[in-house]
């Protein structure tokens, strides 16, 4: 119950900035248009690149723009608040609370993601649908699985951002690590280019790393590239990374707490 309350308040906090949301949707759509034309040129020259057709590719572009803020690809979200509280020392108060820190911030981030999905996710998708005739989910099963995949994507992304923010316990400032992590996220999530285009070992590596959960896996589910046991495996892949990374977050926090105590708070 408490975590639901945290999530709804985070949702409301982000929904305060209406004009910013509209501006963001506009910007996402401009980038959607640019990338659509680039991908259309690519698939015109090679109509079966990566096993996608031109409509798959353009759909992929708009899904990417829709997911950009929802999964907080660039970093940010509630974990930025955490990093700032670590830097100022306010995190000491958070640690006194009778609630787990990871659960608290995860709930808030899910509330934030829900808001961004309904606005920054929905907006560009509609524009892509109208302007570029993107594909809808391949089947009702695909739509449902996409919803599950999306939640898992946010959780994986949250855990990575939590780990990045935690580096502030040692470095005091997360910004350097955050930029590095963002660079990897953009490249290995498939945001910059679908991972299906990555050749050889680079492709195998990219599809095994947690960032594949961000865009490539949900997009492939939407496009109906995974069915049956393959679909279960795709969701399982995300689930495994979510569990592993959340456990790592918990472990790092325990280490960091010990350090805070040693410093005398």
């Amino acid at each position: 119950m408490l975590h639901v309350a945290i999530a709804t308040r985070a949702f409301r906090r982000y929904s305060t900035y209406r004009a910013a949301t509209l501006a963001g949707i506009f910007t996402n759509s401009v980038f959607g248009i640019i990338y659509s034309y680039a991908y259309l040129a690519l698939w015109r020259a090679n109509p079966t690149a990566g096993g996608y057709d031109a409509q798959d590719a353009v759909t992929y572009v708009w899904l990417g723009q829709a997911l950009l803020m929802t999964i907080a690809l660039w970093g940010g979200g509630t974990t930025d608040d955490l990093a700032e509280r670590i830097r100022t020392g306010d995190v000491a108060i958070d640690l006194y609370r009778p609630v787990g820190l990871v659960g608290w911030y995860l709930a808030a981030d899910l509330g934030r993601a829900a808001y961004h999905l309904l606005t920054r996710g929905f907006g560009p998708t509609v524009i892509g649908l109208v302007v570029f005739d993107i594909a809808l989910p391949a089947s009702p099963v695909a739509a449902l699985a996409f919803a599950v995949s999306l939640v898992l994507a946010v959780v994986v992304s949250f855990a990575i951002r939590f780990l990045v923010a935690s580096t502030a316990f040692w470095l005091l400032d997360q910004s350097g690590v955050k930029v590095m992590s963002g660079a990897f996220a953009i490249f290995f999530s498939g945001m910059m280019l679908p991972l299906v285009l990555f050749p050889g070992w680079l492709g195998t590596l990219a599809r095994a790393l947690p960032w594949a959960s961000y865009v490539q896996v949900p997009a492939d589910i939407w496009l109906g590239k995974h069915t049956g046991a393959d679909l279960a495996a795709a969701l399982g892949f995300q689930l495994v990374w979510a569990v592993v990374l959340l456990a790592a977050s918990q472990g790092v926090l325990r280490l960091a707490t010990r350090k805070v105590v040693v410093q005398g708070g």
Partner: protein
Amino acid sequence: MGEAAARHLRTYGQIAWLWIRAAWQYPTSFVLLAVGNGLITGLDFVGLWIMFAHLRDLAGFSLHEVALLYGSASLALAVADTAIGSVERIGTYIRTGRLDQMMTKPVPLLVQVCADQFTLRRLGRLTQAAAVFGWACTYVDWTPLRVLVAVSMLVSGALVFFGLFVGFSCVQFWTTDATEIANAFTYGGATVTQYPLSIFPREVLVGLTFVIPVAFVNWYPCLYLLGRSDPFGTPDAFQFASPVAGLVTGAAALLVWRTGVRHYTSTGS
């Protein structure tokens, strides 16, 4: 006039140096920021390179030709962004009242805003862009006039991006909320320049020539460097018109800036 400009430049340098020393207080972050930014743009180019694993050419342009387009625009953007990137944060200065503080100081506001929180993190991007541009240049059939066009392209390109960043940041004088709209034109403009503009419909090219003139950052001059005819059949004169586009954009931005500052009434806090 020249003397005043030199003085402003020196002040800019002093403020910038102050911020470099401040950033160095967190050395790990300082290094990671530079490396990370280089990595982002580096991986950007790896993306283009992977695209070409599936293609012989993109809308008629080979990899080294696209690299020339990419490298030149990226270099111009990196120079502009290093010099005046902080102007994007003007909304924060308005909200926190720092802009009022700056206005009381005997240094032009634009110089202060641009130099504030100066960061060398873009060194990574600068290095990466220079490397790609250098590599692409080895494929160009150089003549004295082409060297001249190349140099003017880089200077004018930086000027166009300067104009876009300063101009669109001024949106924040009127709204402190919808600032992200500027990104569509600044970073959107930068992204467009990574590709041969022949991938877009003609209407887009017209917009990128006369409204947001990023086509002059690299597209037109690179057509000349590569000795290619314009796929859209625009006049050849455009291939030499980058300096005009740079000066017009820069002047327009300064005008918008002045209007913005005059319109500005403090938040009162």
